[in-house]
Structures are given as structure tokens and as C-alpha cells.
């Protein structure tokens, strides 16, 4: 069993084999408040797993996957942190019960083969009681381990469907990004050509302003000439009248 859990083979769990896992999150503790059915082998029915997952999410043992598009970064970080805690917690809880299970199994085998390791020719009442005690402990602990494994698979399946849903959202976001990028490109074109036109029109406006100034100067000149001509006319008229 060294593959998954590190076992302390010398530990004695005589007094604490039945102690629930003390830390949280705890799958077994969460299951104790949930109603479900078991099959003839004592395993949780597959049809009950989704309901159990939902119940555990409500209890806060399994963090709910954020699905809304306006989830803040801090909420996402909180979810990810709690998710990692759940994954590590599942392993820790499994190993906790697994150590007790291995102890119980060893005690059971030991009680079966006897102190000499040669088995019994006949089993006394006391020995039978001991065997039953360790058998009961093994069955209980085995059930807990199976429950944790089943829930683990259920969470994994739930995650897989969440990934599919998120994948759709990511595709939508990608499409939006492409659209916005195209819009940016067209805006850039408008800006570039627009700026050229603006420069042209501004130059044209400057030229027309200059033309206006020249016209003003010409108007002033002609006004002066007209006044001079009028004055001359008046002078000629006065001269001819005085004669």
C-alpha cells in the first residue's frame, strides 16, 4: 500500500480505530448527513452519487465551480485554493482510514491464525469474539474507504462536465476576441485615412483663410481708390462751378 499512502505499520489503533477523521473537509462526515442507498455489496448506488455531490457542495465540503462570467479574480482564487484543499484533504482522509483498515486487517488475520501462526484446530468463544470484533472493524473501515473512492470518482465526473461547460464559454470568449480584433483593425484604418483627410482639409482651410485676407486687402485698396475718385470728382465739380 506504499503506492498511495505512507503507512505507519507499528501504530496501534486499538482505541482510535473508530475515531472520525478530525480535519476538514471530510467526505465521510459529510456523507453522514446525507441519505442514500447501498447495493448488495455495500457500495453507494451510482444513481445517488450526483445528489451526494450536490449535498456536499451545499455543505461547503466540495467548493462549487464558478460558472458566472463576471466572477471576480479573488473569488476564482478562493475557489481554486479550496479545491486544492479538497483534493489534498481527500487523500489525507483516505490515508487516515486506510491506516486503520490495514491495522484492522492485520489484527483480523492475526486473530485467525492464532499466536503460533498455525491456525486453530477448534475456535474458542473468546477467539470467535475477537475475530468478529476485528472483522466488524475491517468491514466498517472498508466501507468508508469505498465511500471515499466512490465520491472521489463522482467529483471527478462532475469536474469533467464543468470543463465541458467552461470550454463552451471559452470558445465564445475567443469568438468575441476575434470580433473585437477585427473591429480594432477597421478602427485603425479609419484613423489612418481620417487623419490624412483631416490634414488635407486643414490645409485647404488655411489656404482659403489666406485668400480671404488677400481679398480684404484688395477691398480696402479699392475702397480707398473709390473715395479718392469721389473726392476728385467733387473737386472737379467745385472747380467748374466756381468758374
Amino acid at each position: 500500500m506504499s503506492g498511495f499512502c505512507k503507512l505507519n505499520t507499528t501504530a496501534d489503533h486499538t482505541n482510535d480505530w473508530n475515531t472520525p477523521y478530525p480535519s476538514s473537509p471530510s467526505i465521510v462526515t459529510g456523507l453522514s448527513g446525507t441519505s442514500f442507498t447501498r447495493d448488495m455489496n455495500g457500495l453507494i448506488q451510482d444513481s445517488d452519487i450526483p445528489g451526494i455531490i450536490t449535498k456536499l457542495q451545499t455543505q461547503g465540503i466540495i467548493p462549487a465551480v464558478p460558472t458566472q462570467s463576471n466572477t471576480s479574480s479573488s473569488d476564482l482564487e478562493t475557489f481554486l485554493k479550496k479545491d486544492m484543499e479538497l483534493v489534498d484533504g481527500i487523500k489525507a482522509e483516505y490515508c487516515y482510514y486506510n491506516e486503520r483498515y490495514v491495522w484492522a486487517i492485520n489484527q483480523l488475520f492475526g486473530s485467525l491464525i492464532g499466536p503460533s501462526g498455525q491456525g486453530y484446530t477448534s475456535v474458542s468463544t473468546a477467539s470467535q469474539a475477537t475475530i468478529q470484533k476485528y472483522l466488524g472493524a475491517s468491514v466498517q473501515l472498508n466501507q468508508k474507504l469505498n465511500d471515499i473512492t466512490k465520491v472521489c470518482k463522482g467529483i471527478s465526473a462532475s469536474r469533467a462536465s464543468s470543463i465541458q461547460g467552461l470550454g463552451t464559454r471559452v470558445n465564445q470568449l475567443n469568438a468575441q476576441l476575434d470580433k473585437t480584433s477585427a473591429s480594432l483593425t477597421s478602427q485603425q484604418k479609419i484613423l489612418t485615412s481620417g487623419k490624412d483627410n483631416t490634414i488635407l482639409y486643414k490645409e485647404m482651410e488655411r489656404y482659403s483663410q489666406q485668400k480671404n485676407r488677400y481679398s480684404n486687402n484688395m477691398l480696402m485698396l479699392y475702397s480707398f481708390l473709390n473715395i479718392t475718385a469721389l473726392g476728385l470728382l467733387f473737386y472737379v465739380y467745385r472747380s467748374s462751378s466756381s468758374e
Partner: protein
Amino acid sequence: MGNNLSGTTDAINLFQQIATSQSLTSQNLQDLQTYVQQAQQNLFNDVTGKKDAAIQNAYGELKANTNALHGINYYAKRNEQLNSIQNDIVETAQKQATAVQSDSNLAKRQNEINEWEAQNKQDTLFVYSQLLIILSTTVILAYLMSIGILSSYVFYCVVLALVLVFIFTIVNRAQYTRSIRDRRFWNKRRFPTDTTPLNTNICLNATSESGITVTTNTDMSGNSF
């Protein structure tokens, strides 16, 4: 999962029976002990090995799916942020484009106004130059009249003609600028527009009386013909 509770109990019962029968039949107790311990170890390894494989599989899957979920969550969040940034940039670019467009339109319109004003001044200049010519001619004719070369009758006729031409020029230009000239472009002319829609029923009535079949079509502007 391979951890059948009843199967485990059966295996334990069988083991117990084997151990018991072996102890009855075997003469070498040392061999029996070795055999029993070996059987115990094998059974233990079998039971715990299957459990280990099951949890490794389930937990491995859970870790893989969890990592994938976390990755895709980050990906989605990044895309959302990128989208938001891009939208901001598009908004800014749109504002800039609108400003550039507005500047361009303003400059264009100001240019049109300046051109109209310049042309108006040119027209005024024409009137001023005409006045100058008339005044200069009048001065010369007045001098000639004063020295006796030109008679006063001729002088007044010429001056009257010139004044009439001048008045006519002013009235004509003012009236043209007020009613006919385009308000936006100096060199353009305004034409009266008739917005009354054509009455096509007259044509339909006429053709139906003559017995000819007419089909009515409508163009993009909604006019029927």
C-alpha cells in the same frame, strides 16, 4: 472496485478452514506456520493491492480533471480580461476616430465657409472696380465738360447710363445671391424641387379603360410605376 465485502469475508472464512485443515493433517508444524504466514501475506497483498489500484485510479483522475478545470478557469478569466481590455481600446479608438472625423468635417465646413466668403468678396471687388471705372470716367468727362470740350447734355447722358448699369449690376447680383445662389457653394445654383409624388393611378385608369393589362412595380424608394 474489486473490494467486495462479502467476498472478503468468504476469503477469510476459506482461509480459516484451510488453516484448520492443514493444522489437522500436517506433521511438520514449522512448514505449516510458513504456509499459513505466506497465505496470510498473499491475501493481505491481494486485498490491499486492489484497493490501492482503485484509489490510485480514482484519485489520479480527480487530480487530472481538477488541474484541467483550474487551467481552463484561468484561461477563461484571462480571456475575459483580454476582452475587457480590447473593448476599452476599441472604445478609445472609436472616440479618436470620431474626433478625427469631426475635425475633418469641421475643417471641410470651415473651408467651404471661407471659400464662400472669399468668392463673395471677389464679387464685391468686382462692384468696387466697376464703381471706380464709373467714377474715373465721370471725373474725366466732368473735366472735359469743364474745359468746354464736351457738352453737358452728353455728359449727363453718359453718366446716367453708367449709373443705371451700376444700379442694375448691384440689384442683379444681390437678387441672384439671395434667391438663386446655393447657400453652401458660391458657384452652385439652387433649382426648385418638386416633392409632389407622381399620381400613377391616372395611368392605370387610362390603361384599364383601353383594355391593356398593366403591372405595377415599386422601386427601392417606394415609388410605384
